[in-house]
């Protein structure tokens, strides 16, 4: 099996072989990794400031507030003001991380996000927790299922949704170095610690996590773990499945995805976003223009979910590892 997996922690590979990744493997919500990383950034760079909207304790940026009280600004429950103020700060050379939940940060303040940040290409980082259906029990009002689609439609946007804590920290540091707006997406619920320290992380460069030749699963954020399990399930059916962590939704790593399309001939995308406009749409658009092959999209199928444990929601709404594996079998059958 040497060479099958890349950059995964040894215990993750063990869990994958034993079928226990989603139930036994250690993990954490990636929002905390963001909070750790931005705190570290605070020490490194005096231009980094954190803007909160009354969910600092939930995300963990209250620790930045304690360490750098003069560089943290809590705007209260007023995301529109926070986002446009971040734009104003960026015009003076500060690097603001405006922090909230996906639904509020993108939808409540979408006009500010578009007109005050992206149109003038201001150097604001939008740090967004509660992505997809990862806030399972909170229900649809707090499940950020459209943020990736909405942000993708805005010109000058860069969108990164990392799969685990380690790469979320790397994404946060990379965002600080990136010139221009970056949207970072985190999970509310825990996801497994997937990666070893040697994982290369660069905005715009997807990661091949598992080798395979019959089909490719392209996954983002929390769904990378599901995709890895799905690949094992497919392997049990005799299929060799590549898994790609497409942490950067925009700019999409088109060369790497097209190579996977050519080499494996079938693709399934996996996201806990709506299937309308997110990763599945982005990959479909790429393939239809450059290399049309059998493809399926896993995601919320134009519906709101409901309250419930995250893994139960994945099962009920057709987004579990098992569903992904079934989709893999179908696309391979259509080749």
């Amino acid at each position, binding site marked *: 099996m040497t060479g099958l997996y890349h950059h995964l922690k040894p215990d993750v590979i063990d869990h994958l072989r034993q079928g226990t990744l989603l139930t036994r493997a250690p993990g954490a919500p990636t929002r905390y990794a963001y909070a750790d990383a931005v705190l570290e950034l605070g020490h490194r760079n005096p231009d980094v*400031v954190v803007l909160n909207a009354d969910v600092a304790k939930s995300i963990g940026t209250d620790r930045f507030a304690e360490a750098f009280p*003069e*560089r943290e*600004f809590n*705007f*209260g429950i*007023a995301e*529109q*003001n*926070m*986002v*446009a*103020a*971040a*734009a*104003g*700060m*960026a*015009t*003076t*050379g*500060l690097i*603001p991380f405006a922090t909230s939940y996906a639904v509020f940060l993108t939808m409540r303040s979408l*006009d*500010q996000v*578009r*007109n*005050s940040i992206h*149109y*003038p*290409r201001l150097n604001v980082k939008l740090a967004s927790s509660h992505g997809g259906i990862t806030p399972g029990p909170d229900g649809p009002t707090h499940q950020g299922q459209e943020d990736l689609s909405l942000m993708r439609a805005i010109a000058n946007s860069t969108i990164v949704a990392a799969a685990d804590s380690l790469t979320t920290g790397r994404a946060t540091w990379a965002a600080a170095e990136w010139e221009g707006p970056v949207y970072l997406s985190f999970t509310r619920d825990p996801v497994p610690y997937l990666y070893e320290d040697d994982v290369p992380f660069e905005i715009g460069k997807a990661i091949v996590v598992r080798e395979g030749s019959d089909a490719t699963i392209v996954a983002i954020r929390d769904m990378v773990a599901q995709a890895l399990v799905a690949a094992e399930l497919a392997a049990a059916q005799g299929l060799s499945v590549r898994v790609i962590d497409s942490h950067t939704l925009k700019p999409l790593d088109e060369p790497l995805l097209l190579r996977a399309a050519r080499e494996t001939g079938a693709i399934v995308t996996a996201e806990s976003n709506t299937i309308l406009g997110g990763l599945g749409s982005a990959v479909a658009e790429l393939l239809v223009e450059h290399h049309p092959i059998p493809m399926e999209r896993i995601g919320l199928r134009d519906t709101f979910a409901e309250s419930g444990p995250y893994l139960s929601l994945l099962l009920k709404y057709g987004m579990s590892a098992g569903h992904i594996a079934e989709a893999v079998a179908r696309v391979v059958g259509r080749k």
Partner: protein
Amino acid sequence: MIDNTQDSFEPLSIDALRTMAGVIRCDIIDMICTAEAGHPGGSLSAADIVTALYFRVMRLDPQNPAWPDRDRFILSKGHACPVWYSALAERGYFDKTHLGTLRRIDSILQGHPDMRKTPGIDMTAGSLGQGLSAGLGMALSGKLRGKDYHVWIVLGDGETQEGSVWEAAMAASKWKLDNLTAIVDRNRLQNDTYVKDVMPLGALAEKWRAFGWHVIDIDGHDMTQIVRALETAKTLRDQPVCIIAHTVKGKGVSYMEDIAEWHGRAPCDEEALLALDEIRRACDLPEEGVR
């Protein structure tokens, strides 16, 4: 009080400001007539305020628009940008010939202010209700870095119907931003009709006071009152200042004054000549043709 250290510009006298406001009003009419589109009413109502800021009160350097210590200005009611473009051109940020390119392909002068295209534009604006928040961010940054620049925001009165304006008002008070001044261009009209009929603002001054601001009511066309209020706003401490400037939409062009239709309609050539003639007579400006 007046600190234009970065260039040799002499702040204008009250009389010279009045004349300059006339020049700017003529530019506005010229620009919008030539572009065959734009928003004359709200540009004209803000002309005296913007003139006082750019030709007397603000610390700036047209040769160095990105000077970190400059005062910041945001026209939150971005549709009135002809007044801003004219002030910038007359102050030397770019050549006046650009004014004839308003709203044209490849122009540096967009239909609404674009900070990436126009020298001197400190913040992109156009979607109402965002400028005060952006200015708040600039003011917070100034405090954080120990800079003494001042941030000036002009809002429309209709614009204060946007809820986020009041989010920003609350926040500016929380952070005691005495380096931030909001000027409400209270011309009493908005796109559809009178503000009082669309969505009345009620006791506007009392609302700003209740949000923790020091409020100054002025006649927004009386240059002496404008300059005094702006200079007072620079000196008050521990509290943001809101200047409610009572103005007339379309001020200076009698057939436009207080008429909602002139919010977003361009004058034709004949109408423009009439308007220019009236403005020039009022300010003793020499006669010129339409650009």
